[in-house]
């Protein structure tokens, strides 16, 4: 779908959307001055759907992603995730929901520096209370699925950018989330690595029936989405 296309609320016929954002606003107060970043953002994302969020720098893409990832609360509006109104949840429940339902892929990978690839992928499983043996087996399986079976014991600084992002992808998928949020996942990669990461992200999401929301500047990445949401000065179009 072309960048800038309209953003209708799409869900599979007969199924409830995975997430529904309605009238989301977010403002910050800096030195007494109110800065409105998001205005009345309303949209839905269905299960298994791939959505790209595009927009200029400062248009509020990352802020929206933080709200969708339950890392930040909207100033007003409602955000339902998997049938739960997240704006009413306490912090502990939001953390639990985030851990169980949402996987993150960051532009700068955010791998733990002194841990191996295997250990990095295992972190969400530690948080889920998965026993050590099962955790290692699962992390190994995920790394194999992204083609890193030969890099299990490598630390981030021993990996290329593309490999680090594949580790981050494996980590994002470790708890089979219903939603993968990718913030400029190819922003720090060359063209070949970008293509490989997007191939793997979309393939792994398809296999798991996970929805993907990608924030990107890259038209090639946006083209691969089922739908594109454009943000202009904090408003969805």
């Amino acid at each position, binding site marked *: 779908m072309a960048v800038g296309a309209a953003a209708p609320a799409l869900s599979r016929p007969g199924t409830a959307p995975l997430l529904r954002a309605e009238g989301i606003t977010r403002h910050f107060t800096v030195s007494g001055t109110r800065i409105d970043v998001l205005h009345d953002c309303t949209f839905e994302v269905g299960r298994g759907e791939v959505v790209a969020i595009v927009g200029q720098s400062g248009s509020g893409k990352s802020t929206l992603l*933080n709200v969708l*990832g339950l*890392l*930040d609360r909207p100033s007003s509006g409602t955000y339902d995730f998997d049938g739960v109104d997240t704006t009413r949840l306490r*912090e*502990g429940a939001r*953390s*639990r929901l*985030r*851990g*169980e339902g949402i996987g*993150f892929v*960051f532009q700068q990978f*955010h791998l*733990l*520096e*002194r*841990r191996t690839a295997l*250990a990095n992928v295992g*972190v*969400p499983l*530690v*948080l*889920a*209370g998965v026993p050590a043996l099962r955790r290692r087996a699962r992390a190994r399986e995920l790394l194999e699925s992204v083609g890193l079976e030969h890099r299990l014991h490598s630390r981030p600084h021993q990996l290329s950018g593309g490999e680090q992002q594949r580790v981050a992808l494996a*980590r994002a998928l470790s*708890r089979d989330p219903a939603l993968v949020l990718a913030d400029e996942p190819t922003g720090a990669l060359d063209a070949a690595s970008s293509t490989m990461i997007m191939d793997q992200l979309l393939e792994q999401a398809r296999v798991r029936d996970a929805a993907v929301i990608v924030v990107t500047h890259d038209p090639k990445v946006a083209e691969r989405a089922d739908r594109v949401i454009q943000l202009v000065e904090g408003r969805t179009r």
Partner: protein
Amino acid sequence: MLRSLTAGIVLAFAGSRANVARTILSCAGIVVGVGSLILVVTGSDFGERFAIAYSETNAGRAATFEISVMEEVSDQEALEEDIRRAGAQEVSLFQTPSASVLLRSGGTVIDTADFRGVDASLGEIRRFTMAEGRWFTEADLESRVPVLVVNEDLANAMGDRERVQIGTDRWTDVRIVGVLESSGTDFTWQSAYLLRSPASEDLLFGPPPPGQADPYGDYMPSGGVTYLARIDPGDPAAQDPTGTMFHERLTSTAWRWGVRSSDSVWGYRIDGADVIEDAVTYLSWGLAGIAAITLTTGLLGVLNVGLVTVRERRRELATYRALGASRFTLFVVVVMESVVVSLVAGVIALLACWALVTAAAAVLESFVSLPTGVALAIPPSGVLVGLGSAAAVGLLAGIVPAMRALRSSVVAGLRE
């Protein structure tokens, strides 16, 4: 909650292993503090055990009284009965013979040994460790010859231990049934305990031989006796430092054993258990205070490193939050890392102290023979106090950085 706690602990251990440099940096202060504390506990424990062993060997177990009657006692049985009635659980004669006793074995004559006439019950009053043989038993009362237990110094000075005689003006065969271990607590030279029995009656209570004066006659009139008695340390009489209560109990019936003046009866506590306890308590508080100051310095070191690293690790901690860690898990991660670091420091301190104490024990034992059960070693309480204080310091030092970590914005952390 439990899952958050477990996850926090697992991640904290992994973090400590991964950040070895940080762990070592944080350890230094705690190693010194915990090491000092372990050495304080070890020193106090050793000092207390040595002092108690010294007191129990040379005076008696808590609470031992020495009772001297400085005039002739007409009925020793009545006196002993009244000592028991005054609260004594064990009573033993502790009598110097009325004449200088010589000892002959083989061709050797020893005239410098210190003899004391005692009952078998002295074994219940004083702490004795046998190097050979045994202490007296009731069966020894039937012996036809006097029965002795000697110390190692005297045993070593004898030429032949099988054929031994003692005497004042004539020699009497004696039987040695045991040898007492000499140790650093034993400051007498050659000494022997002579069991009070029909066979030793003359040696202990008979008149000195013609021409020989009673060597102790200047302060113990003829017919006077000395006893050691052990009473319950919880008895109010045991708490009375002047011994007045016990003296009053005992002398109220002094007429039964032929003593008219209560001034002729002395009775006072001679063991040092209460004094030792007080001294060890004061010493421990003083030394623990010094250790606490050192430990506080270590705590501040860990706290400082913790605060710096939390600031440096904002992105890492925000990543944990993004991956689903609750605030409680994050709190546990930071606090447990501090606890892990402190425990590692505690274990290092323990190993260092163990090496130091083992070396010190080897040096000490080359100079002094320590009594049985008084080895210089880190006691279990030292291990517990050391590791427990290390964990407590880690816990305290981890709380402030953990609170700061919770206040950090996840979104800001992920942007770094």
